[in-house]
């Protein structure tokens, strides 16, 4: 065990920190889940790309730095510490790109990845449907074989930032007679295509963070199939716990939030300091627990990255990872709101963060599903 960073890693950290200090906007951008905010975020994404900080762990040829997973973790720590803007490109970079790296043809890599890194193409995810949420395998959106490509019909929903993106990656039922996980194909769909209708709608915090996407005889060419035809489920799942680590939820975000929580505690609550609020009510213990939770998540991640670096394949512990960060994030914000007391209902970073945290136990597989997975795949309890 060696919990120190090498000189090269420290140098990488210093470079990242210096650039971020010089470039992170002084006042926070408006939410990237509004139309105006999204545009401002794109400027930021392009500045990141120009300085080659957009996709540090990617090969240089696609706009990255060939950074190690350790360097990626360091970058993320610095990114959140600097209070840099939310990454509106993250669904492409964290969810689609690992799949392209693993299943894409060279032509697809060259076509997709540089434009994704440069925030020229903006990707949203098309997995969930009105009747396929936790039960994702119930997908009914169809892709019918036509000459040289596919004709799409159906509906996707809960598509994050769908109203602001120009490409969608999604799963479609390509074998009309198939059921459940079989007969699905992973397709890349331009949202400007004829027959596509995108309707944005409001998330809990009021931002237009979601979209429904309707497909009516939409044509996509064969070159937009990622991985094998009818093999979409495996393609999509293979990278959900990618050994490239790119789908790791980086601890930097929670460590940074916890630092803000400690500040809030020390300041006695914002905006009206009132020490009486804090004593004898267990709030100090909860603040310490929050710090411990975030630190434990950082350690769990170091352990996972060590395993990845040593080439040990990741397993169902991705479920544990998700349970931890999502529920920690809720508790952490709840503690902040309890510190704020009556001021908690004010709109602001904590109330926004709280509402966002609440989505954690729901999206990317509800925590009920994650607990099933942990119990069945790690502990070996019977599926029934």
């Amino acid at each position, binding site marked *: 065990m060696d919990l120190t960073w090498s000189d090269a890693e420290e140098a990488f950290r210093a470079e990242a920190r210096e650039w971020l200090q010089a470039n992170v906007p002084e006042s926070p951008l408006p939410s990237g889940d509004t139309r105006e905010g999204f545009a401002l975020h794109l400027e930021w994404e392009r500045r990141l790309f120009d300085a080659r900080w957009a996709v540090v762990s990617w090969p240089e040829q696609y706009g990255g730095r060939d950074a190690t997973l350790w360097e990626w973790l360091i970058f993320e720590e610095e990114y959140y510490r600097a209070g840099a803007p939310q990454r509106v490109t993250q669904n492409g970079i964290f969810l689609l790109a690992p799949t392209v790296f693993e299943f894409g043809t060279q032509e697809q890599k060259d076509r997709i990845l540089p434009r994704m890194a440069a925030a020229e193409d903006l990707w949203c995810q098309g997995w969930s449907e009105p009747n396929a*949420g936790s039960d994702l395998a119930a997908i009914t959106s169809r892709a019918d074989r036509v000459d040289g490509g596919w004709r799409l019909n159906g509906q996707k929903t809960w598509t994050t930032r769908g109203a602001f993106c120009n490409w969608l990656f999604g799963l479609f039922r390509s074998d009309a007679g198939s059921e459940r996980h079989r007969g699905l194909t992973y397709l890349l769909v331009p949202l400007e295509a004829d027959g596509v209708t995108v309707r944005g709608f409001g998330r809990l915090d009021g931002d237009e963070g979601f979209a429904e996407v309707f497909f009516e005889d939409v044509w996509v060419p064969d070159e937009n199939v990622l991985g094998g035809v009818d093999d979409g489920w495996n393609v999509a799942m293979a990278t959900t716990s990618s050994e490239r680590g790119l789908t790791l939820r980086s601890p930097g975000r929670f460590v940074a939030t916890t630092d803000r929580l400690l500040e809030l505690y020390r300041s006695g609550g914002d905006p009206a300091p009132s020490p009486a609020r804090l004593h004898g009510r267990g709030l100090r213990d909860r603040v310490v627990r929050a710090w411990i939770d975030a630190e434990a998540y950082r350690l769990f991640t170091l352990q996972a990255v060590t395993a990845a670096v040593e080439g040990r394949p990741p397993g169902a512990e991705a479920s544990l990872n998700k349970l931890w960060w999502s529920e920690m994030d809720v508790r952490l914000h709840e503690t902040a709101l309890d510190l704020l007391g009556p001021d908690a209902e004010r709109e602001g970073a904590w109330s926004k963060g709280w509402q966002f945290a609440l989505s954690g136990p729901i999206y990317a597989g509800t925590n009920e599903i994650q607990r099933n997975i942990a119990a069945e795949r790690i502990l070996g309890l019977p599926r029934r």
Partner: protein
Amino acid sequence: MHFGFTDDELLLRDAVRALFERECPPDVVRAAWDAESLDRRVWDALAQMGVPGVLVAEASGGLGLDELSLVLLLEESGRAALPHPMVETAAVAAPLLGAGLGARLVATDLGGVLVPCAGDADLLLLRAPDGLRAFERAAVTVVPEPTVDRARRAGLVQCRPEDGTLVTGDEGAIDLAFDRGALGTAAQLVGLAQRMLELTVAYAKERRQFGVPIGSFQAVKHRLADALLQVEFARPAVHRAAWSVAHDVADRARDVSMAKAMASDAALHVAGAALQCHGAIGYTVEYDLHLWMKRAWALARAWGDGGWHRDRVGRAIGV
């Protein structure tokens, strides 16, 4: 010993519930989010029934009832997520100002710096150095403040004490007014929790995944059973506190604080369970759940949050 309500109390409750079902569907709550001024139709209907004067003596034109009726009606207002300041008007102001409020709306800063419906109120009851003072709306400045539940229509109020009339300088009377506010808010929280639970149970019966209603999964069942448990144990605490206020017993402050702490916790707990059992649909503003959930977040911490009130209970029981 009798821990229950009279038939008359329950009949009035049923009448008010029917009024809310008719006059205050979710669309009315939703409309309050962005309306320039608060639509008063529901409130006028309540006023016609005499509800704002529930605690005012009959001789003074009120209903001459006590806090037991009050909490039953406020629980209904919570169920309806009524945007009007019913706690502030009926529970806090009316007993102090007596007759003549009619259909007027009152706002107050007794429950916190953020004053709900400050801009919509006809009258404001505000803390001043010498006690509690009443101000006409025109006599104060209201700065709207963005909060998570926009139907609360909260604002910050600035005033010059001399522009208002002294209502009372008696700290005991102000404490009692605060206790009525906290009690009333606790009752609303129970109503909010109850409604969120009902909404979620209905959804869990209907929504199907994996070929079955999600309400048949044990994880969903147990989460909702826990939510029910919280509501069913918070409610008697509110009822008892109502009795303690009505009879001004020695333990009044302790009992009100216990009720507010339990109701705050129950509402937050149920809101969490409701959102998780709904999944993504609950996370949208198009679906109604968020109207109740955000009210619960706000009210759970207004008039003192759970920790504040447990602290007060602790002092009362000597720890």
